[in-house]
């Protein structure tokens, strides 16, 4: 490959290392003279590489132009990224631009971005990073995220900001890569931690920063020991249980902002969750924290319209459902609640497809006593005999009435395959999307879905990290029991950039546990029609001591009567709503 400008090779690499030639201390400021530019000129002189006077003069004009451009107090990145954003469909919201400006010009790059869920904290962080890069203020950047979000960050930075970051894979990457995305859990362990603490970073971005709320953890101590000039922390829940958590987070980015812990306790803590001087605290927090809220009119989200579709099982299917349920209850009595996970799976699968149920039963047979095997074998035989699937019939009818793109969510791979088999047989073009696909394939399938196919059948894990705002119809073939997983599903289409109302079709089988789940999630918590921010904070606040699914399963196993189950679920739902209100009050008072 020939170079366009042959007399100027490796210019970029030569400009890399900023070595200080000498330093002078003046009265008001330090004077530093860098060696890099001069060295480059001298090396060109030695090599007798003289560029033409015309290029030299033009370069001087370009320098002046560049410098004059940088004097603006507007965000350079906005104009720079305008065309890219147009191509990838990013619409920057006013609150995001304001946040970026505030962090750069007022907070000197030290901030907690604590917007409510779905308001685009990642966009804000990307914008700030891009602006700093364009202004030449940062070079060495480290982004610490949970492992599951590494690729999402990579894509967001590349697609939306044209930033080509690296993903950390080996211990050499820390020094080698200028902009690196890494998992916090990996980074805090040796030998990585030693490498990182020896580097001076210009900017550190920490996603899901609420994981650093406890100052005695290794993660906290590790982040605290990183040498950094600017630091951004992203969390929707800066307080989960205790005001001390907030203090710890702020001490990480600006130690001393809230004084010593003793003085903070005296001045601001009434009890664990109630601040003493909220107004005063609010002022101090506003100097290091930005929190945009949904109800401030910042963004108009489109509506969510829920369509429950009740499916009555055939007597044969109902009988099998009852037998599997009975089997689950018996097993739970025998094995206790310690090994409840496979039983939860089985109970959920039986509401999805019998194929999924059969596969799980087969796996369970390995660890069963010989006397139970006969019962399971009978069940398997009967499951295999069922030729009809009423839920899938209903799905076919539903899909037949819809024109536009549809995403069908199921929790199980076996159900996913069965649904695709049925729909393909009925003449629909479908695509499968799941967590086992490589990044490239996921992108390709997303592209194919956008351009070609009408239906995407996705499992839960496939739903994370990719967005499908071009589609506004979601079918929940089976319901996840955990509201966070449900929100993740809906969040794939109902997010910033969605221009239409989102239709959510819930297929639920009558006289099964699904009816109860639907009651809890829809009627009680109103999960489908409203976006409940801070779900993780609420669940943490409830302090269940077990998973959401286990809580429901225990209620289900403990009672035979439907009324009793409903009553317990009511109570559980009330606790959730109360927790939600408490979390909201404690954070609203301060931000």
């Amino acid at each position, binding site marked *: 490959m020939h170079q366009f400008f042959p007399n100027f090779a490796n210019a970029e690499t030569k400009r890399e290392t900023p070595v200080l030639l000498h330093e002078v201390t003046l009265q008001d400021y330090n004077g530093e003279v860098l060696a890099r*530019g001069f060295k480059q*000129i001298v090396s060109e002189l030695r090599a007798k590489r003289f560029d033409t*006077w015309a290029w*030299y003069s033009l370069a001087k004009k370009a320098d002046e132009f560049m410098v004059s451009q940088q004097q603006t107090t507007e965000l350079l990145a906005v104009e720079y990224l305008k065309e890219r954003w147009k191509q990838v469909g990013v619409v920057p919201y006013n609150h995001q631009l304001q946040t970026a400006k505030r962090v750069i010009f007022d907070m000197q790059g030290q901030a907690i971005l604590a917007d409510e869920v779905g308001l685009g904290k990642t966009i804000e962080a990307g914008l700030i990073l891009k602006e700093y890069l364009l202004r030449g203020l940062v070079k060495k950047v480290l982004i610490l995220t949970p492992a599951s979000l590494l690729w999402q960050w990579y894509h967001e930075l590349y697609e939306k900001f044209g930033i080509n970051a690296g993903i950390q894979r080996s211990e050499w990457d820390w020094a080698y890569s200028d902009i690196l995305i890494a998992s916090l859990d990996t980074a805090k362990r040796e030998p990585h931690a030693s490498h990182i603490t020896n580097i001076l970073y210009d900017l550190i971005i920490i996603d899901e920063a609420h994981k650093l709320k406890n100052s005695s953890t290794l993660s906290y101590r590790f982040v605290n020991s990183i040498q950094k000039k600017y630091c951004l922390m992203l969390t929707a829940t800066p307080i989960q249980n205790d005001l001390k958590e907030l203090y710890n987070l702020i001490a990480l980015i600006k130690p*001393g902002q809230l004084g010593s812990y003793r*003085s903070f306790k005296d001045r601001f803590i009434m009890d664990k969750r109630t601040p003493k001087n909220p107004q005063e605290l609010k002022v101090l927090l506003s100097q290091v924290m930005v929190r945009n809220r949904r109800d401030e009119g910042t963004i108009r989200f489109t509506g969510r319209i829920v369509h429950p579709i009740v499916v009555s099982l055939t007597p044969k299917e109902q009988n099998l459902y009852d037998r599997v349920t009975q089997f689950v209850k018996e097993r739970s009595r025998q094995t206790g609640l310690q090994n409840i996970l496979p039983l939860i799976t089985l109970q959920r699968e039986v509401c999805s497809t019998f194929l999924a149920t059969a596969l799980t039963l087969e796996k369970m047979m390995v660890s069963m006593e010989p006397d139970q095997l006969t019962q399971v074998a009978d069940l398997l035989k009967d499951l295999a005999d069922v030729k009809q699937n009423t839920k899938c019939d209903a799905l076919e009818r539903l899909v037949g009435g819809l024109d536009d793109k549809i995403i069908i969510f199921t929790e199980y791979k076996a159900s996913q395959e069965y649904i695709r088999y049925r729909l393909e047989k009925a003449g629909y073009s479908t695509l499968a999307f799941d967590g086992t696909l490589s990044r490239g394939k996921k992108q390709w399938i997303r592209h194919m879905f956008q351009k070609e196919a009408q239906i995407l059948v996705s499992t839960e894990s496939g739903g994370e990290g990719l967005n499908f705002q071009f589609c506004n119809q979601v079918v929940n073939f089976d319901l996840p029991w955990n509201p966070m997983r449900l929100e993740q599903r809906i969040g794939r289409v109902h997010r910033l950039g969605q221009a239409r109302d989102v239709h959510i079709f819930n297929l639920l089988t009558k006289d099964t546990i699904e009816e109860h789940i639907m009651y809890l999630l829809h009627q009680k918590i109103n999960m489908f029609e409203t976006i409940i921010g801070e779900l993780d904070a609420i669940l943490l606040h409830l302090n269940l001591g077990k998973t959401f699914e286990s809580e429901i399963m225990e209620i289900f196993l403990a009672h035979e009567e439907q009324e009793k189950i409903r009553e317990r679920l009511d109570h559980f739902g009330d606790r959730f709503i109360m927790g939600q209100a408490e979390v909201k009050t404690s954070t609203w008072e301060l931000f």
Partner: protein
Amino acid sequence: MRTMQQLVFDFFRLCNLEPVEIRKGVWQVRADDALMKELDGWRAQGRLLQFTFDQRSAETYGADLICHGSYRLNSILQVIRKQGVLSQAHIPHHFFHEPGIRKKILGGFGAVERAYVVNCSLQYSQYLELEILAEARGLQKKESIHTVVVDLSSGKVLKFAFPYHLLKAGEVPKDTLRKRKCSFKQAFANATTHLHETMAASDHNWAYEARHKLTLEEEKLREFFQGRTESEEFKAKKQELHQRLAPAVRIDALRGAILLVPLFHYRLVVVETHGKEKSKNLTYDPIGNQYLQDSD
């Protein structure tokens, strides 16, 4: 706007490309693989590059928008800025009227002495022009560009404006170059000292603000550490604070050029009143408009 347009067209012209106006306000050039790679990175391929300076045309025809801060302008600026790290130019000697200079020199001897020119020669004095970027880093970063010209014969920074309009590209015969008496390193040091002096005389509010903020933040930090100011952690946090807020001016050379200026060198014979003859060497520097008397 006109400057920007001129800059872009000059760029393409220097790349030997002639933009064609395909619609009103929309231009097109055929950029080959190599140029596109310089502009858009190694993945880019050659194409018909369409550009416009008008937002509406960009939206209508999908041409690359060139305006303040736009991606395409920045990519062009980046490429231009990588060029011309070092160049040279000279002021041709014929720009100055030599007989006039000779007359002026001879006329300077007055009535009591007479002088005549034995021989006349031409030399080129070397000047180093440095374009220097100064970054004032306080609460925000403010950049400015300064051009300093250093006379490589004396090492002195030129105090008057260099007549750039007289410069012509290209070299001069090597044997006409006057020997440098100042090294490039010394010239750069003199230029930076001069720059520091110039900046010291300008407004320092940005530095006061940053210093004030730094003091406040340092107090907060001390309170947080409650007297543990000898701890390594305190020192590290304090260092971070200084890196972020301590006011500093960072100077770096962006590019340089050797400027060659003709010097008219005369060997004279001066006849004094009592008839005694004395030889004298005189050099005339036309841009400084000064006569330099050389020792015999």
